[in-house]
């Protein structure tokens, strides 16, 4: 296995990082803070979401530490409520939603379609500033005492009963929402209007298709979250009554508005990750993605179905039996396009020339864990099992399998895959393979016991639990420490590689995407001349021809 690799690096003795690239073109802090280059904005996002990820991660560590013992001994129950709320708010709105789109999407959507930049570069920078404003406001909220409603801001708890900082947290999420709207809008316009000559819709890499689908969700869903938060704020401050039963309002209306965004939001989080997996699977099995059209349309199908399943979060909240029946059926339908993707990736691997570099290891992690997360989602979509399992650790395990096991694996897969293009240097292979395996083991150990705990009836959002659940909780906390190591390793060796990594050259993976046909790190304007797309996506024979031609002209 060790000798079998597709990596082809330039001769390290003579290779140099190109002098003129997007990092070296301009210098100084202001050249970064006022940039309109999509690649620099992607780097700004990468640094900031990593920062928020580790804050959210530290809060997760506190939660697991508290749950090591059945009693509440590490922190008071009120503090525990605040810790899990801030963990949810930060991880969802400040890490998962912008994770792949704002970093890898920002960097590679223009490059993959052969454009010089996103259609609206200044709006792109504005979206980063909005994200930072929201994020810093969330941190400020945490510093002045936090909020304890859970990340869902459920009424009437959030509007009438708690005395914590609902308004500032709401404002933070509201601002971050506009950042997400602007990113989605920018992507849609770019994909429609900025494609290079010959780049037809069905020659687009699947990464683009999945970002397109996610952008539709951002643009259509997020404004509804915004108005729901405005209503919460007005209900809390002046008591307008729309969610207040004593005035004739209905708290369920808030649930409908909130989940109309927040269910599609899980697809905003997962779809860009699926785009990464398509690229990685194809590249490391040296085959065109099996059923390209089906995978492309399954992304759009997820976006469309995703808007009609929100009430499955509300089966026990007093919606009518007929609504439960219909939303249960629709929820199961949304599993079909996800399954199409998993099957097609498996068939892409079938009889491919597979090499096991780190991005593929993470992608395998994604496929396994996302499949479990998705299948347990079907359990929860059927109302019978949902009524037993909802509000237990089964739910917690389910969405962590999808969000952490799925999305975070995809994010790390993508970061490793495109690291040489972004920085011009390779990450160290052996230790990163180790990190991928450690992450997988740590993840399964952390979250698999939680499925069993949920089946046994351990409720979520409590700092204490009956002593008979302790053994499984100890497993889970032990797993969390291993997971922590798994996440810390990439930060260390990726930073190390910025200086000491091997020079990657233009195309270390022998990949077909347009982003690989230019220098690494790329020029500010991406390409020296406008590329013309004259072949299908994932056409490895075209690439071979290209390389033969180059060898001939060089010889």
């Amino acid at each position, binding site marked *: 296995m060790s000798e079998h690799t597709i990596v082809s690096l330039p001769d390290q003795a003579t290779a140099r990082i190109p*002098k*003129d690239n997007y990092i070296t073109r301009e210098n100084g802090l202001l050249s970064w803070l006022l940039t309109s280059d999509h690649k620099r904005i992607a780097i700004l996002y990468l640094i900031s979401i990593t920062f928020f990820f580790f804050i959210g991660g530290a809060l997760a560590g506190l939660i697991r530490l508290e749950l090591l013992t059945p009693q509440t001994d590490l922190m008071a129950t009120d503090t525990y409520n605040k810790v899990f709320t801030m963990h949810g708010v930060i991880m969802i709105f400040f890490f998962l939603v912008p994770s792949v789109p704002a970093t890898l999407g920002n960097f590679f959507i223009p490059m993959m379609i052969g*454009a*010089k*930049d996103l*259609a*609206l*570069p200044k*709006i792109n920078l504005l979206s980063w500033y909005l994200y930072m404003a929201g994020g810093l406001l969330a941190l400020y909220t945490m510093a002045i005492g936090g909020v304890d409603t859970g990340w869902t801001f459920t009424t009437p708890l959030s509007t009438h009963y708690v005395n914590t900082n609902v308004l500032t947290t709401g404002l933070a999420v509201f601002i971050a929402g506009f950042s997400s*709207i602007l990113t989605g*809008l*920018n992507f*849609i*316009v*770019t994909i*429609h*209007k*900025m494609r290079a000559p010959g780049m037809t819709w069905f020659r687009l890499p699947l990464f683009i298709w999945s970002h397109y689908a996610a952008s539709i969700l951002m*643009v*259509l*869903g*997020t*404004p*509804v979250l*915004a*108005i*729901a938060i405005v*209503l919460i704020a*007005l209900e809390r401050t*002046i*008591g*307008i*009554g*729309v969610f207040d039963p004593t*005035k*004739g*309002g*209905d708290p369920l*209306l808030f649930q*409908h*508005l909130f989940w109309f965004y927040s269910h599609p939001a899980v697809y905003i989080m997962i779809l860009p990750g699926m785009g990464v997996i398509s690229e990685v699977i194809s590249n490391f099995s040296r085959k065109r993605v099996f059923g390209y059209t089906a995978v492309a349309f399954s992304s759009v199908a997820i976006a469309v179905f995703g808007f009609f399943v929100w009430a499955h979060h509300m089966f026990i909240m007093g919606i009518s039996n007929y609504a439960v029946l219909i939303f249960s059926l629709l929820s199961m339908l949304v599993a079909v396009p996800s399954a199409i993707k998993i099957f097609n990736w498996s068939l892409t691997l079938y009889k491919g020339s597979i090499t096991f570099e780190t991005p593929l290891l993470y992608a395998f992690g994604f496929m396994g864990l996302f499949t479990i997360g998705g299948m347990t989602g079907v359990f929860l979509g059927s109302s019978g099992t949902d009524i037993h399992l909802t509000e237990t650790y089964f739910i917690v395990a389910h969405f962590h399998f999808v969000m952490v096991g799925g999305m975070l694996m995809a994010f790390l897969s993508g970061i490793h895959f495109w690291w040489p293009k972004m920085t011009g240097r390779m990450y160290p292979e052996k230790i990163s393979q180790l990190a991928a395996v450690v992450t997988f083991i740590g993840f399964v150990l952390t979250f698999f016991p939680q499925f069993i705990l949920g089946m046994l009836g351990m409720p979520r959002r409590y700092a204490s639990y009956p002593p008979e659940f302790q053994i499984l909780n100890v497993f889970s906390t032990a797993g969390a420490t291993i997971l922590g190591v798994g996440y810390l390793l990439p930060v260390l060796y990726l930073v190390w590689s910025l200086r000491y990594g091997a020079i990657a050259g233009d195309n270390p993976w022998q990949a077909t995407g347009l982003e690989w046909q230019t220098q690494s790190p790329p*020029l*500010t*304007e991406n390409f020296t001349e*406008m590329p013309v797309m004259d072949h299908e996506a994932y056409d490895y024979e075209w690439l071979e021809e290209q390389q033969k031609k180059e060898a001939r002209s060089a010889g």
Partner: protein
Amino acid sequence: MQDSPTKSASAAHDEHPAYLRHHFSSAEQQADAAGFAMWLFLLTEVMFFGGLFTAYLIYRNWYYPAFVSGSHQLSVVWGTTNTVVLIISSFTMAMGVWCAQTGRRRGLVLSLALTFFLGLSFLGIKTIEYREKIEKHHVPGFHYSLQSFLDPQSNPEVYAEYHDKPLAPDMARHTELYFSLYFLMTGMHALHMIIGIGILGFMILRARAGAYTAGHETFVLNFGLYWHFIDIVWIYLFALLYLISRH
């Protein structure tokens, strides 16, 4: 090697108009992208107002008598006047777009100024209406009073027009919900008007300098879309809030 990008950039700048941003290959592509982005932005606005319209429709179905009595407290005359004002302002805005496209600088400045003043008139009339609500204690959350609904004759002008029967206390309470939605929806609309008027002021200054009449009218065009959108939202608000009981 290091010289070449700057050289080619300056050469390219000689060939194309100053307003063409470097990452577009043609002015058409740039205008196309900006227009498409504007339509998408309006789509997000539809979703934003959509949440409010949903709330309105649900509660109107549940508490129809309260919503009817609430709407009777609004002045249809002022509402109609404001509708006319906004529709005329949409016409002057459309004239502005036409002037920009045909290169008429003075016509453009005049049209934008008219739109600006019509927008201000709308807000002025809205202020008169809001003031009346404050006087009648019809602002939710601030000393809200049910008197107009429990005893309609206490408000002779409205009573003379509609002859409303007193509402049961239980139903009368729900008029507060009607006024919450009234202030929310018209308030959100007014906020969009204020932003629009601000941008109009900025555009008038730039238009006087001839910024939009030299072939680059995209900004005027897209602002026009925004202005017409606010107009359309108002037409829905007018029908839903003022004309509930008029079939």
